[in-house]
């Protein structure tokens, strides 16, 4: 994608012209401020209004309900103050859920970043059939999550699953992939990595393809071998893309729900329950709407922190590009 760098230059050029205070000629003579406000409203209003009703309102409603308790029998909501939150923070199950979520986040993302970068470096050579294989490995992240769960439950089936058979043939014996409480969360990490390593790969690979070729040629003239060039030249240049992919994945892994639902249903003995799943179960299965809202609000706040970091990363990159 050589076009990317030229677009960046163009944007940088626009930025400098704005910064140097040269007004874009035509904008000034156009339309009065009122008319411009009208146009903005026309273009933006419907989208904003829609999101206020279907995203902002639900978020506010969740916040309010996290301070309430739903009584199923009388179908009423009672104000309970911080009771849901105090129950939450003293609950061992919640602590366990937080731990699972962080395991999935940090272990999963670490594996995906290492493998994704390795894949990108691997595909940075001329191989026949590479395009086909690249096409295949993009597919897992597009699959219906519920079917991904189904596939892996078949592969890992303790009686006839293919992976289980391979484990036995290799002398590992029967592995309790999904039935062993200390192992199940790692099985989840494995499947999550199968599905999402390609995401890191695609982003890092696109960045790699956009790097100017001269950088590498200069490196080989200096007599640096492949390993040295990768470590000192390629990886630092790829770092912005790697960080972006990692933060993006971490936020997504933080709210993992589908995979848990399809693969383990939180079990065995809640050993794979994530925050999303815990909120879902309390809300929809036990009708504890208030408690579930409190869990999801802890998530919203944590996600907001992650999003802020992500946008910082994006901003940093914009400056990198401009200089």
């Amino acid at each position, binding site marked *: *994608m050589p076009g990317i760098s030229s677009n960046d230059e163009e944007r940088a050029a626009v930025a400098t012209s704005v910064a140097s205070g040269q007004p874009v000629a*035509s904008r000034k003579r156009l339309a009065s401020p009122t008319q*411009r406000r009208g*146009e*903005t409203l*026309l*273009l*933006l209003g*419907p*989208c904003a209004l*829609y*999101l206020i009703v*279907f*995203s902002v309102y*639900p978020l506010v409603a*969740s916040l309010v309900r996290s301070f309430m308790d739903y009584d199923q029998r009388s179908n009423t909501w009672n104000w309970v103050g911080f009771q849901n939150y105090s129950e939450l923070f003293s609950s061992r199950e919640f602590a366990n859920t937080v731990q699972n979520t962080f395991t999935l986040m940090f272990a999963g993302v670490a594996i995906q970043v290492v493998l994704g970068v390795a894949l990108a470096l*691997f595909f940075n050579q001329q*191989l026949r059939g590479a395009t086909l*294989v690249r096409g295949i*490995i*993009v*597919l*897992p992240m597009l*699959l*219906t999550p*519920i*079917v991904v769960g*189904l*596939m892996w439950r*078949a*592969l890992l089936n303790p*009686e*006839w699953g*293919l992976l289980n*058979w391979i484990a036995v043939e290799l002398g590992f014996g029967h592995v309790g992939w999904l039935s062993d409480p200390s192992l199940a969360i790692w099985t989840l990490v494995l499947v999550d990595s199968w599905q999402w390593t390609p995401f890191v790969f*695609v*982003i890092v690979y696109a960045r790699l393809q956009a790097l100017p070729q001269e950088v590498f040629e200069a490196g080989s003239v200096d007599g640096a071998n492949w390993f040295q060039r990768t470590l000192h030249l390629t990886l630092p240049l790829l770092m912005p*893309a790697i960080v972006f*992919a990692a933060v*993006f994945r971490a*936020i*997504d892994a933080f*709210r993992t729900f*589908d995979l848990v*639902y*399809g693969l383990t249903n939180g079990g065995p003995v809640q050993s794979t329950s994530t*925050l*999303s799943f815990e*909120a*879902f179960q309390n*809300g*929809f299965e036990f009708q504890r709407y208030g408690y*579930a809202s409190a869990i999801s*609000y802890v998530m*919203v706040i944590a996600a*907001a922190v992650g*999003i802020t970091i992500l*946008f910082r990363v*994006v901003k940093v*990159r914009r400056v990198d590009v401009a200089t």
Partner: protein
Amino acid sequence: MSARTFGRIVSYVVLVLIGIIGAAPFIYLLILSFKSRLDIIIEVPPSLHFNWSTIKANYDEVINQGHYLTYVKNSIIVTGISTMIALVLGVPAGYAFSRLRFRGSDTWSSTILSFRFMPPVAVAIPIFLMINWVGFANTAAGLVLPYIAFTLPLVVWIMIGFFDEIPREIDEAAMLDGLTRPQILFRVLLPLARPGIIVSATFGVIFIWNEFLVGLYIISQQDKETIPIAASSLLTVESPIEWNIAATVGVLTVIPILLFSMVVQRYIVRGITAGAVRQ
């Protein structure tokens, strides 16, 4: 054999391995869908001898007796309408964020984008109660309304990037001709932004086609279920799963999305990298 040739051979072996790891789970599911319930348990690993009548029986049970076509129809209606409306609302917003500077425009755009990362459970319960309250439970509208909201941030995000790539001089020339902003968008820029619209639509379609967390509780009537909702109800039955049927359902669920992604493949890679490489 020189080190170089050896290196090439290793590279090709690794390439094949990567392909196998990527495709094997799907191929395994496909093979299981060709087997009878008993064969799945007996043949470990499954043999590659297939019996046409078994295949026919599995697929006949899912397609003809299992209402598969109803689910596909529901999925197509819900996905189509939601994606369309999300584009109609999101494309002008993306254009506005790309071109117009107004008070708080950065804050507004970041806020909209941040919805893309919000945990769906955080809004699922209020949305569920809201949809029930207006009486849209068990209707297509009950799914379409929240799905638009889930897709919009993605559309806006992708479209800002694509509009940013279109030179502003085009807008300026059109303004000299006396066109207003909305006119410029609809008459001049839409054709130029077509790749962006296709990318947005592609991701909208994939996301909505796969969604089931919210759908699961809005839809409780079998004839209104979309494909993933129907597939998930099959999975959650804790009694022993009929694996031949489950595998067939799995295959039939992902085949439409696989076909679709093959058609739009180059847009998918562009969409994934849009956020990363663009900004």
